[in-house]
Protein backbone atom coordinates (compact mmCIF):
# COMPACT_ATOMS: atom_id res chain seq x y z
CA UNK A 1 0.00 0.00 0.00
CA UNK A 2 2.65 2.53 1.09
CA UNK A 3 6.33 2.05 0.51
CA UNK A 4 9.19 4.28 1.64
CA UNK A 5 12.40 3.48 -0.15
CA UNK A 6 15.49 5.04 1.39
CA UNK A 7 13.77 8.36 1.92
CA UNK A 8 15.61 11.41 3.17
CA UNK A 9 14.12 14.82 3.77
CA UNK A 10 16.21 17.90 4.38
CA UNK A 11 14.70 21.31 5.11
CA UNK A 12 16.87 24.21 4.09
CA UNK A 13 16.16 27.43 5.91
CA UNK A 14 18.31 30.53 5.86
CA UNK A 15 21.77 28.97 6.00
CA UNK A 16 20.51 26.19 8.26
CA UNK A 17 19.82 22.65 7.18
CA UNK A 18 17.55 20.35 9.13
CA UNK A 19 17.71 16.64 8.44
CA UNK A 20 14.09 15.81 9.25
CA UNK A 21 14.18 12.25 7.89
CA UNK A 22 17.06 9.95 7.09
CA UNK A 23 17.14 6.64 5.25
CA UNK A 24 13.56 5.70 5.90
CA UNK A 25 12.52 2.26 4.66
CA UNK A 26 8.99 1.32 5.52
CA UNK A 27 6.22 -0.89 4.20
CA UNK A 28 2.62 -0.42 5.15
CA UNK A 29 0.24 -3.16 4.09
CA UNK A 30 -3.31 -2.77 2.87
CA UNK A 31 -5.64 -2.97 5.88
CA UNK A 32 -2.97 -2.08 8.46
CA UNK A 33 -3.47 0.31 11.28
CA UNK A 34 0.11 1.38 11.31
CA UNK A 35 1.36 3.61 14.10
CA UNK A 36 4.48 5.75 14.12
CA UNK A 37 5.52 6.82 17.58
CA UNK A 38 8.23 9.22 18.60
CA UNK A 39 8.88 12.30 20.66
CA UNK A 40 8.20 15.79 19.39
CA UNK A 41 10.59 16.75 16.58
CA UNK A 42 11.36 13.15 15.66
CA UNK A 43 10.08 13.75 12.12
CA UNK A 44 6.70 12.03 12.34
CA UNK A 45 4.65 14.79 10.72
CA UNK A 46 7.17 15.12 7.94
CA UNK A 47 6.96 11.38 7.31
CA UNK A 48 3.17 11.57 7.17
CA UNK A 49 3.12 14.60 4.87
CA UNK A 50 5.32 12.77 2.37
CA UNK A 51 2.56 10.22 1.85
CA UNK A 52 0.07 12.71 0.40
CA UNK A 53 2.80 14.82 -1.17
CA UNK A 54 2.36 17.87 1.04
CA UNK A 55 6.13 17.46 1.18
CA UNK A 56 8.41 15.98 -1.46
CA UNK A 57 11.35 13.75 -0.47
CA UNK A 58 14.83 15.17 -0.92
CA UNK A 59 16.10 11.75 -1.98
CA UNK A 60 14.49 8.34 -2.25
CA UNK A 61 10.89 7.62 -3.18
CA UNK A 62 7.51 7.20 -1.57
CA UNK A 63 5.09 4.92 -3.38
CA UNK A 64 1.36 4.87 -2.66
CA UNK A 65 -0.41 1.99 -4.38
CA UNK A 66 2.69 1.75 -6.52
CA UNK A 67 2.54 5.39 -7.61
CA UNK A 68 5.26 7.88 -6.90
CA UNK A 69 3.24 11.02 -6.20
CA UNK A 70 6.29 13.25 -6.57
CA UNK A 71 6.50 12.29 -10.25
CA UNK A 72 2.88 13.08 -11.15
CA UNK A 73 1.60 16.20 -12.87
CA UNK A 74 -0.27 18.64 -10.63
CA UNK A 75 -3.57 17.44 -11.99
CA UNK A 76 -2.79 13.76 -11.51
CA UNK A 77 -1.46 14.51 -8.04
CA UNK A 78 -4.72 16.22 -7.02
CA UNK A 79 -6.56 13.14 -8.25
CA UNK A 80 -4.44 10.90 -6.04
CA UNK A 81 -4.72 13.23 -3.04
CA UNK A 82 -8.49 12.84 -3.16
CA UNK A 83 -8.00 9.14 -2.40
CA UNK A 84 -6.14 9.97 0.80
CA UNK A 85 -8.02 11.37 3.77
CA UNK A 86 -6.26 13.27 6.52
CA UNK A 87 -7.15 14.31 10.07
CA UNK A 88 -5.26 16.58 12.40
CA UNK A 89 -4.47 17.30 16.02
CA UNK A 90 -6.24 20.65 15.88
CA UNK A 91 -8.99 19.40 13.58
CA UNK A 92 -8.45 22.19 11.02
CA UNK A 93 -12.12 22.80 10.36
CA UNK A 94 -13.27 25.94 8.55
CA UNK A 95 -14.69 28.45 11.02
CA UNK A 96 -16.80 30.02 8.31
CA UNK A 97 -18.69 26.83 7.55
CA UNK A 98 -21.04 24.78 9.65
CA UNK A 99 -20.55 21.05 10.21
CA UNK A 100 -22.52 20.04 7.13
CA UNK A 101 -20.66 22.51 4.90
CA UNK A 102 -17.30 21.47 6.30
CA UNK A 103 -17.94 17.86 5.38
CA UNK A 104 -19.24 18.92 1.96
CA UNK A 105 -16.05 20.82 1.08
CA UNK A 106 -14.05 17.93 -0.45
CA UNK A 107 -17.06 17.01 -2.58
CA UNK A 108 -17.52 20.61 -3.70
CA UNK A 109 -13.91 20.63 -4.82
CA UNK A 110 -14.75 17.67 -7.07
CA UNK A 111 -17.76 19.60 -8.35
CA UNK A 112 -20.20 16.89 -7.44
CA UNK A 113 -23.92 17.55 -7.76
CA UNK A 114 -25.89 18.98 -4.84
CA UNK A 115 -27.90 15.77 -4.60
CA UNK A 116 -24.82 13.56 -4.39
CA UNK A 117 -23.18 15.88 -1.91
CA UNK A 118 -26.28 15.87 0.28
CA UNK A 119 -26.51 12.09 0.29
CA UNK A 120 -22.84 11.52 1.03
CA UNK A 121 -22.60 14.20 3.71
CA UNK A 122 -25.63 12.76 5.50
CA UNK A 123 -24.15 9.25 5.33
CA UNK A 124 -20.87 10.52 6.77
CA UNK A 125 -22.71 12.45 9.50
CA UNK A 126 -24.61 9.33 10.46
CA UNK A 127 -21.43 7.25 10.55
CA UNK A 128 -19.75 9.60 13.03
CA UNK A 129 -23.01 10.03 14.91
CA UNK A 130 -23.34 13.78 14.45
CA UNK A 131 -26.54 14.05 12.43
CA UNK A 132 -28.08 16.37 14.99
CA UNK A 133 -25.11 18.75 14.87
CA UNK A 134 -25.19 19.33 11.10
CA UNK A 135 -26.07 23.02 11.39
CA UNK A 136 -23.69 23.79 14.23
CA UNK A 137 -20.49 25.75 13.74
CA UNK A 138 -17.14 24.25 14.82
CA UNK A 139 -16.78 26.61 17.76
CA UNK A 140 -19.98 25.26 19.23
CA UNK A 141 -18.56 21.72 19.36
CA UNK A 142 -16.40 19.87 21.86
CA UNK A 143 -12.97 18.58 20.84
CA UNK A 144 -14.23 15.05 20.32
CA UNK A 145 -17.11 16.27 18.17
CA UNK A 146 -14.74 18.41 16.10
CA UNK A 147 -12.53 15.40 15.48
CA UNK A 148 -15.56 13.39 14.40
CA UNK A 149 -16.36 16.13 11.90
CA UNK A 150 -12.74 15.88 10.76
CA UNK A 151 -13.13 12.14 10.31
CA UNK A 152 -16.41 12.55 8.42
CA UNK A 153 -14.78 15.12 6.16
CA UNK A 154 -11.87 12.76 5.51
CA UNK A 155 -14.16 9.82 4.73
CA UNK A 156 -16.73 11.54 2.58
CA UNK A 157 -14.73 10.99 -0.61
CA UNK A 158 -14.31 7.24 0.07
CA UNK A 159 -10.53 7.26 0.43
CA UNK A 160 -8.39 4.12 0.51
CA UNK A 161 -6.06 5.55 3.09
CA UNK A 162 -6.46 7.71 6.16
CA UNK A 163 -3.56 9.71 7.58
CA UNK A 164 -3.84 10.82 11.21
CA UNK A 165 -1.49 13.48 12.55
CA UNK A 166 -1.72 13.29 16.35
CA UNK A 167 -5.47 12.99 15.97
CA UNK A 168 -6.13 12.44 19.66
CA UNK A 169 -3.34 14.49 21.22
CA UNK A 170 -5.64 17.43 21.96
CA UNK A 171 -8.33 15.25 23.54
CA UNK A 172 -8.92 14.02 27.07
CA UNK A 173 -8.36 10.29 27.78
CA UNK A 174 -12.01 9.28 27.53
CA UNK A 175 -12.59 11.12 24.26
CA UNK A 176 -9.32 9.67 22.98
CA UNK A 177 -10.66 6.16 23.50
CA UNK A 178 -13.92 7.04 21.74
CA UNK A 179 -12.09 8.47 18.73
CA UNK A 180 -9.77 5.45 18.60
CA UNK A 181 -12.79 3.13 18.59
CA UNK A 182 -14.22 5.16 15.72
CA UNK A 183 -10.96 4.82 13.79
CA UNK A 184 -11.02 1.10 14.40
CA UNK A 185 -14.49 1.00 12.86
CA UNK A 186 -13.27 3.02 9.89
CA UNK A 187 -10.64 0.37 9.36
CA UNK A 188 -13.01 -2.58 9.86
CA UNK A 189 -16.14 -1.32 8.09
CA UNK A 190 -14.55 0.35 5.08
CA UNK A 191 -11.27 -1.54 4.96
CA UNK A 192 -9.43 1.76 4.98
CA UNK A 193 -5.71 1.51 5.72
CA UNK A 194 -4.72 3.87 8.53
CA UNK A 195 -1.34 5.46 9.04
CA UNK A 196 -1.18 7.41 12.27
CA UNK A 197 1.51 9.25 14.11
CA UNK A 198 1.47 9.95 17.82
CA UNK A 199 3.57 10.42 20.90
CA UNK A 200 1.03 8.54 23.04
CA UNK A 201 1.60 4.85 23.70
CA UNK A 202 -2.05 4.49 24.58
CA UNK A 203 -2.95 5.07 20.92
CA UNK A 204 -0.50 2.48 19.64
CA UNK A 205 -1.58 -0.06 22.24
CA UNK A 206 -5.27 0.53 21.65
CA UNK A 207 -5.60 0.22 17.86
CA UNK A 208 -2.38 -0.39 15.96
CA UNK A 209 -1.29 -3.73 14.64
CA UNK A 210 2.10 -2.56 13.48
CA UNK A 211 4.36 0.17 14.74
CA UNK A 212 7.51 2.04 13.92
CA UNK A 213 9.48 3.93 16.57
CA UNK A 214 11.15 7.11 15.38
CA UNK A 215 14.01 9.07 16.80
CA UNK A 216 15.88 11.97 15.27
CA UNK A 217 14.51 11.40 11.80
CA UNK A 218 15.22 7.68 11.71
CA UNK A 219 13.15 4.58 12.36
CA UNK A 220 14.87 2.73 15.18
CA UNK A 221 12.51 -0.24 15.58
CA UNK A 222 9.56 -1.58 13.65
CA UNK A 223 7.32 -4.63 13.64
CA UNK A 224 4.21 -6.06 15.29
CA UNK A 225 3.18 -3.89 18.22
CA UNK A 226 3.45 -6.78 20.66
CA UNK A 227 6.91 -7.80 19.55
CA UNK A 228 8.29 -4.29 19.62
CA UNK A 229 7.03 -3.34 23.06
CA UNK A 230 7.21 -6.69 24.85
CA UNK A 231 10.92 -6.86 24.15
CA UNK A 232 12.11 -3.37 23.29
CA UNK A 233 15.71 -3.12 22.18
CA UNK A 234 16.46 0.59 22.00
CA UNK A 235 16.36 3.01 24.91
CA UNK A 236 13.62 5.16 23.39
CA UNK A 237 11.48 2.12 22.67
CA UNK A 238 11.94 1.02 26.27
CA UNK A 239 10.78 4.40 27.47
CA UNK A 240 7.63 4.11 25.42
CA UNK A 241 7.05 0.55 26.60
CA UNK A 242 7.35 1.78 30.19
CA UNK A 243 4.41 4.09 29.59
CA UNK A 244 2.05 1.15 29.29
CA UNK A 245 3.85 -1.53 31.28
CA UNK A 246 5.86 -0.60 34.33
CA UNK A 247 8.42 -3.35 34.38
CA UNK A 248 10.91 -1.50 36.51
CA UNK A 249 11.20 -2.67 40.07
CA UNK A 250 9.39 -0.22 42.34
CA UNK A 251 11.79 1.83 44.42
CA UNK A 252 10.09 0.79 47.64
CA UNK A 253 11.01 -2.86 47.00
CA UNK A 254 14.65 -1.90 46.65
CA UNK A 255 14.41 0.10 49.86
CA UNK A 256 12.82 -2.72 51.80
CA UNK A 257 15.38 -5.15 50.40
CA UNK A 258 18.33 -3.09 51.52
CA UNK A 259 16.70 -2.73 54.92
CA UNK A 260 16.48 -6.52 55.07
CA UNK A 261 12.74 -6.45 55.56
CA UNK A 262 12.05 -9.53 53.48
CA UNK A 263 12.27 -13.00 54.88
CA UNK A 264 12.89 -14.62 51.55
CA UNK A 265 14.41 -13.61 48.24
CA UNK A 266 12.68 -11.33 45.74
CA UNK A 267 12.33 -12.30 42.10
CA UNK A 268 11.10 -10.45 39.04
CA UNK A 269 8.95 -12.73 36.82
CA UNK A 270 8.39 -11.63 33.24
CA UNK A 271 5.61 -13.40 31.36
CA UNK A 272 5.50 -13.14 27.63
CA UNK A 273 2.77 -14.30 25.28
CA UNK A 274 2.01 -18.01 25.85
CA UNK A 275 3.42 -18.25 29.34
CA UNK A 276 0.98 -15.58 30.59
CA UNK A 277 -1.98 -17.94 30.47
CA UNK A 278 -0.32 -20.83 32.35
CA UNK A 279 -0.89 -21.49 36.09
CA UNK A 280 2.78 -21.14 36.86
CA UNK A 281 2.55 -19.53 40.30
CA UNK A 282 0.06 -22.07 41.61
CA UNK A 283 2.21 -24.88 40.20
CA UNK A 284 5.20 -23.59 42.12
CA UNK A 285 3.20 -23.27 45.32
CA UNK A 286 1.87 -26.81 45.04
CA UNK A 287 4.95 -28.68 43.93
CA UNK A 288 7.85 -27.02 45.71
CA UNK A 289 8.64 -26.47 49.34
CA UNK A 290 8.42 -22.70 49.17
CA UNK A 291 6.06 -19.92 50.19
CA UNK A 292 5.19 -17.18 47.74
CA UNK A 293 4.19 -13.59 48.34
CA UNK A 294 3.22 -11.43 45.38
CA UNK A 295 4.61 -7.97 46.07
CA UNK A 296 3.72 -6.13 42.91
CA UNK A 297 2.25 -7.01 39.55
CA UNK A 298 1.16 -5.71 36.23
CA UNK A 299 -0.45 -7.58 33.35
CA UNK A 300 -1.16 -5.99 30.05
CA UNK A 301 -2.92 -6.83 26.83
CA UNK A 302 -1.66 -5.76 23.45
CA UNK A 303 -3.40 -7.03 20.34
CA UNK A 304 -5.08 -9.81 22.33
CA UNK A 305 -1.74 -11.06 23.60
CA UNK A 306 -0.95 -10.72 27.29
CA UNK A 307 2.26 -9.93 28.93
CA UNK A 308 3.09 -9.04 32.45
CA UNK A 309 5.46 -8.68 35.34
CA UNK A 310 5.32 -9.93 38.88
CA UNK A 311 7.51 -9.17 41.84
CA UNK A 312 7.43 -12.27 43.99
CA UNK A 313 9.00 -12.97 47.34
CA UNK A 314 9.99 -16.64 47.60
CA UNK A 315 10.59 -18.04 51.06
CA UNK A 316 12.36 -21.39 51.21
CA UNK A 317 15.81 -22.92 51.17
CA UNK A 318 18.17 -22.23 48.29
CA UNK A 319 18.05 -25.76 46.91
CA UNK A 320 14.28 -25.60 46.56
CA UNK A 321 14.43 -22.12 45.06
CA UNK A 322 16.94 -23.35 42.50
CA UNK A 323 14.37 -25.98 41.44
CA UNK A 324 11.74 -23.30 41.10
CA UNK A 325 14.02 -21.29 38.86
CA UNK A 326 14.66 -24.29 36.70
CA UNK A 327 10.94 -24.96 36.36
CA UNK A 328 10.31 -21.34 35.41
CA UNK A 329 12.94 -21.46 32.73
CA UNK A 330 11.28 -24.53 31.22
CA UNK A 331 7.96 -22.68 31.23
CA UNK A 332 9.52 -19.77 29.33
CA UNK A 333 9.14 -17.31 32.13
CA UNK A 334 12.02 -14.96 32.45
CA UNK A 335 13.09 -14.66 36.10
CA UNK A 336 15.63 -12.35 37.62
CA UNK A 337 16.48 -11.96 41.23
CA UNK A 338 16.07 -8.46 42.58
CA UNK A 339 18.85 -7.34 44.85
Amino acid at each position, binding site marked *: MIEFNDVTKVFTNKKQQVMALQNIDLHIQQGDIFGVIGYSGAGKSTLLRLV*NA*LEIPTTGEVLVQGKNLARLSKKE*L*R*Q*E*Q*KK*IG*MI*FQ*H*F*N*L*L*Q*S*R*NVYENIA*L*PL*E*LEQQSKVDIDRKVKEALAFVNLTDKAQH*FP*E*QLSGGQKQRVGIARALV*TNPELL*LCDEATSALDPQTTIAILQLLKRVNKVFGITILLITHEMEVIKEICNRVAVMEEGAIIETGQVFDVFAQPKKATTKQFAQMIVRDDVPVVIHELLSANRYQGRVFHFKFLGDSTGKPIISHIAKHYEVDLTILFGNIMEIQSTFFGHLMVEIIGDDVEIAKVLQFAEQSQVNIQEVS
Partner: protein
Amino acid sequence: MEISSDILVRALQETLYMVSVSLVFGGIIGIVLGVTLVVTRKGHILENRYVYALLNPIVNVLRSIPFIILLVAIIPLTRLIVGTSIGTTAAIVPLVLHIGPYFSRLVENSLLEVDEGVIEATRAMGATPVQLIIKVLLPEAFGSFVLSLTTVTISLIGATAMAGAIGGGGLGDVAITYGYQRFDTATIVVTVVLLVVIVQIIQSIGNHFERKIRRFN
Protein backbone atom coordinates in the same frame (compact mmCIF):
# COMPACT_ATOMS: atom_id res chain seq x y z
CA MET B 1 -25.40 80.27 6.70
CA GLU B 2 -25.04 81.35 3.08
CA ILE B 3 -25.72 78.09 1.35
CA SER B 4 -29.05 76.55 0.46
CA SER B 5 -30.06 73.05 1.39
CA ASP B 6 -29.97 72.20 -2.35
CA ILE B 7 -26.23 72.73 -2.37
CA LEU B 8 -25.82 70.62 0.72
CA VAL B 9 -27.90 67.79 -0.67
CA ARG B 10 -25.96 67.85 -3.95
CA ALA B 11 -22.66 67.86 -2.06
CA LEU B 12 -23.81 64.94 0.02
CA GLN B 13 -24.73 63.01 -3.11
CA GLU B 14 -21.35 63.78 -4.63
CA THR B 15 -19.58 62.56 -1.53
CA LEU B 16 -21.57 59.34 -1.47
CA TYR B 17 -20.94 58.88 -5.19
CA MET B 18 -17.19 59.30 -4.83
CA VAL B 19 -17.06 57.04 -1.82
CA SER B 20 -19.14 54.24 -3.31
CA VAL B 21 -17.50 54.16 -6.73
CA SER B 22 -13.98 54.35 -5.24
CA LEU B 23 -14.95 51.68 -2.78
CA VAL B 24 -16.03 49.31 -5.53
CA PHE B 25 -12.89 49.76 -7.60
CA GLY B 26 -10.58 50.14 -4.64
CA GLY B 27 -12.17 47.09 -3.05
CA ILE B 28 -11.59 44.95 -6.13
CA ILE B 29 -8.01 46.15 -6.50
CA GLY B 30 -7.42 45.67 -2.78
CA ILE B 31 -8.67 42.11 -2.75
CA VAL B 32 -6.82 41.10 -5.91
CA LEU B 33 -3.59 42.72 -4.72
CA GLY B 34 -3.99 41.42 -1.18
CA VAL B 35 -4.62 37.86 -2.31
CA THR B 36 -1.68 38.04 -4.72
CA LEU B 37 0.60 39.37 -2.00
CA VAL B 38 -0.31 36.43 0.19
CA VAL B 39 -0.33 33.49 -2.20
CA THR B 40 2.92 34.45 -3.93
CA ARG B 41 4.77 34.58 -0.63
CA LYS B 42 7.52 32.11 0.09
CA GLY B 43 6.08 28.71 0.93
CA HIS B 44 2.54 29.63 -0.05
CA ILE B 45 0.35 27.98 -2.65
CA LEU B 46 1.47 30.03 -5.63
CA GLU B 47 4.90 31.04 -4.44
CA ASN B 48 6.41 33.46 -6.94
CA ARG B 49 9.40 35.48 -5.92
CA TYR B 50 9.23 37.85 -8.88
CA VAL B 51 5.58 38.79 -8.62
CA TYR B 52 5.91 39.36 -4.90
CA ALA B 53 9.12 41.36 -5.26
CA LEU B 54 7.43 43.57 -7.86
CA LEU B 55 4.09 44.17 -6.14
CA ASN B 56 5.27 44.61 -2.59
CA PRO B 57 7.29 47.80 -3.16
CA ILE B 58 4.64 49.26 -5.48
CA VAL B 59 2.07 48.93 -2.74
CA ASN B 60 4.48 50.42 -0.23
CA VAL B 61 5.22 53.42 -2.40
CA LEU B 62 1.57 54.15 -3.13
CA ARG B 63 0.79 53.76 0.54
CA SER B 64 3.45 56.22 1.59
CA ILE B 65 2.48 59.10 -0.71
CA PRO B 66 0.24 61.56 1.16
CA PHE B 67 -3.15 61.72 -0.51
CA ILE B 68 -3.03 65.46 -1.20
CA ILE B 69 0.20 64.96 -3.16
CA LEU B 70 -1.06 61.88 -4.96
CA LEU B 71 -4.07 63.93 -6.02
CA VAL B 72 -1.86 66.41 -7.86
CA ALA B 73 0.87 64.05 -8.95
CA ILE B 74 -1.32 61.78 -11.00
CA ILE B 75 -3.28 64.45 -12.85
CA PRO B 76 -1.96 63.25 -16.25
CA LEU B 77 -3.03 59.71 -15.46
CA THR B 78 -6.45 60.90 -14.34
CA ARG B 79 -6.89 62.82 -17.58
CA LEU B 80 -5.91 59.73 -19.52
CA ILE B 81 -8.46 57.54 -17.76
CA VAL B 82 -11.52 59.75 -17.35
CA GLY B 83 -10.78 62.50 -19.87
CA THR B 84 -10.65 65.34 -17.34
CA SER B 85 -8.65 66.21 -14.26
CA ILE B 86 -11.26 68.18 -12.38
CA GLY B 87 -14.65 67.33 -11.01
CA THR B 88 -16.17 64.54 -9.03
CA THR B 89 -15.43 61.72 -11.47
CA ALA B 90 -11.83 62.85 -11.82
CA ALA B 91 -11.41 62.65 -8.06
CA ILE B 92 -12.25 58.97 -8.18
CA VAL B 93 -8.98 58.00 -9.89
CA PRO B 94 -6.68 59.22 -7.10
CA LEU B 95 -9.18 57.98 -4.51
CA VAL B 96 -8.98 54.47 -5.95
CA LEU B 97 -5.20 54.63 -6.15
CA HIS B 98 -5.12 55.79 -2.57
CA ILE B 99 -7.53 53.29 -1.12
CA GLY B 100 -6.72 50.19 -3.21
CA PRO B 101 -3.20 49.63 -1.87
CA TYR B 102 -4.32 50.58 1.64
CA PHE B 103 -7.11 48.02 1.52
CA SER B 104 -4.75 45.44 0.00
CA ARG B 105 -2.55 45.58 3.12
CA LEU B 106 -5.58 45.06 5.32
CA VAL B 107 -6.70 42.16 3.13
CA GLU B 108 -3.21 40.73 3.26
CA ASN B 109 -3.20 40.84 7.06
CA SER B 110 -6.60 39.21 7.28
CA LEU B 111 -5.56 36.42 4.92
CA LEU B 112 -2.33 35.79 6.79
CA GLU B 113 -4.41 35.25 9.90
CA VAL B 114 -6.28 32.35 8.31
CA ASP B 115 -5.27 29.20 10.17
CA GLU B 116 -2.41 27.44 8.40
CA GLY B 117 -3.85 24.09 9.43
CA VAL B 118 -7.01 24.84 7.48
CA ILE B 119 -4.94 25.65 4.42
CA GLU B 120 -3.00 22.41 4.86
CA ALA B 121 -6.21 20.42 5.23
CA THR B 122 -7.56 21.93 2.02
CA ARG B 123 -4.34 21.24 0.15
CA ALA B 124 -4.50 17.65 1.36
CA MET B 125 -7.95 17.39 -0.24
CA GLY B 126 -6.39 18.08 -3.62
CA ALA B 127 -7.80 21.60 -4.02
CA THR B 128 -6.56 23.78 -6.86
CA PRO B 129 -5.04 27.13 -5.82
CA VAL B 130 -8.11 28.97 -7.15
CA GLN B 131 -10.43 26.69 -5.17
CA LEU B 132 -8.33 27.26 -2.09
CA ILE B 133 -8.59 31.03 -2.49
CA ILE B 134 -12.29 31.14 -3.26
CA LYS B 135 -13.61 28.38 -1.03
CA VAL B 136 -11.33 28.75 1.95
CA LEU B 137 -9.06 31.81 2.18
CA LEU B 138 -11.59 34.51 1.33
CA PRO B 139 -14.55 33.08 3.29
CA GLU B 140 -12.38 32.41 6.34
CA ALA B 141 -11.11 35.99 6.28
CA PHE B 142 -14.51 37.52 5.50
CA GLY B 143 -15.31 38.63 9.03
CA SER B 144 -12.16 40.68 9.31
CA PHE B 145 -12.64 41.99 5.74
CA VAL B 146 -15.85 43.65 6.83
CA LEU B 147 -14.06 45.50 9.59
CA SER B 148 -11.29 46.50 7.18
CA LEU B 149 -13.88 47.69 4.71
CA THR B 150 -15.39 49.89 7.41
CA THR B 151 -12.02 51.40 8.19
CA VAL B 152 -11.33 51.93 4.50
CA THR B 153 -14.71 53.55 3.89
CA ILE B 154 -14.19 55.98 6.70
CA SER B 155 -10.76 57.02 5.52
CA LEU B 156 -12.25 57.37 2.03
CA ILE B 157 -14.72 59.92 3.39
CA GLY B 158 -11.80 61.86 4.81
CA ALA B 159 -10.02 61.66 1.48
CA THR B 160 -13.08 62.86 -0.50
CA ALA B 161 -13.14 65.94 1.69
CA MET B 162 -9.55 66.60 0.62
CA ALA B 163 -10.45 65.97 -2.99
CA GLY B 164 -12.76 68.97 -2.54
CA ALA B 165 -9.63 71.05 -2.46
CA ILE B 166 -9.07 70.47 -6.16
CA GLY B 167 -12.69 71.01 -7.08
CA GLY B 168 -13.78 67.43 -6.67
CA GLY B 169 -17.15 68.41 -5.27
CA GLY B 170 -18.76 66.88 -2.24
CA LEU B 171 -19.07 68.04 1.34
CA GLY B 172 -15.38 68.88 1.62
CA ASP B 173 -15.65 71.20 -1.36
CA VAL B 174 -18.60 72.99 0.20
CA ALA B 175 -16.79 73.35 3.48
CA ILE B 176 -13.78 74.90 1.75
CA THR B 177 -15.45 77.16 -0.81
CA TYR B 178 -18.32 78.41 1.34
CA GLY B 179 -17.08 77.89 4.84
CA TYR B 180 -13.34 78.43 4.84
CA GLN B 181 -12.93 80.91 2.01
CA ARG B 182 -15.98 83.04 2.95
CA PHE B 183 -15.61 82.69 6.71
CA ASP B 184 -19.02 81.05 7.02
CA THR B 185 -18.69 79.15 10.28
CA ALA B 186 -22.22 77.76 10.16
CA THR B 187 -21.49 75.97 6.89
CA ILE B 188 -18.33 74.45 8.28
CA VAL B 189 -20.22 73.24 11.33
CA VAL B 190 -23.03 71.77 9.25
CA THR B 191 -20.70 69.93 6.85
CA VAL B 192 -18.56 68.63 9.66
CA VAL B 193 -21.61 67.40 11.54
CA LEU B 194 -22.82 65.68 8.38
CA LEU B 195 -19.45 63.97 7.88
CA VAL B 196 -19.38 62.85 11.50
CA VAL B 197 -22.89 61.43 11.20
CA ILE B 198 -21.99 59.53 8.03
CA VAL B 199 -18.88 58.08 9.65
CA GLN B 200 -20.87 57.00 12.69
CA ILE B 201 -23.49 55.30 10.54
CA ILE B 202 -20.88 53.42 8.54
CA GLN B 203 -19.02 52.30 11.65
CA SER B 204 -22.25 51.01 13.16
CA ILE B 205 -23.23 49.14 10.02
CA GLY B 206 -19.75 47.64 9.80
CA ASN B 207 -19.76 46.53 13.42
CA HIS B 208 -23.21 45.07 13.06
CA PHE B 209 -22.29 42.91 10.08
CA GLU B 210 -18.97 41.91 11.52
CA ARG B 211 -20.67 40.68 14.66
CA LYS B 212 -23.26 38.84 12.63
CA ILE B 213 -20.67 37.08 10.52
CA ARG B 214 -18.45 36.21 13.45
CA ARG B 215 -21.20 35.11 15.75
CA PHE B 216 -20.25 31.47 15.35
CA ASN B 217 -16.69 31.86 14.28
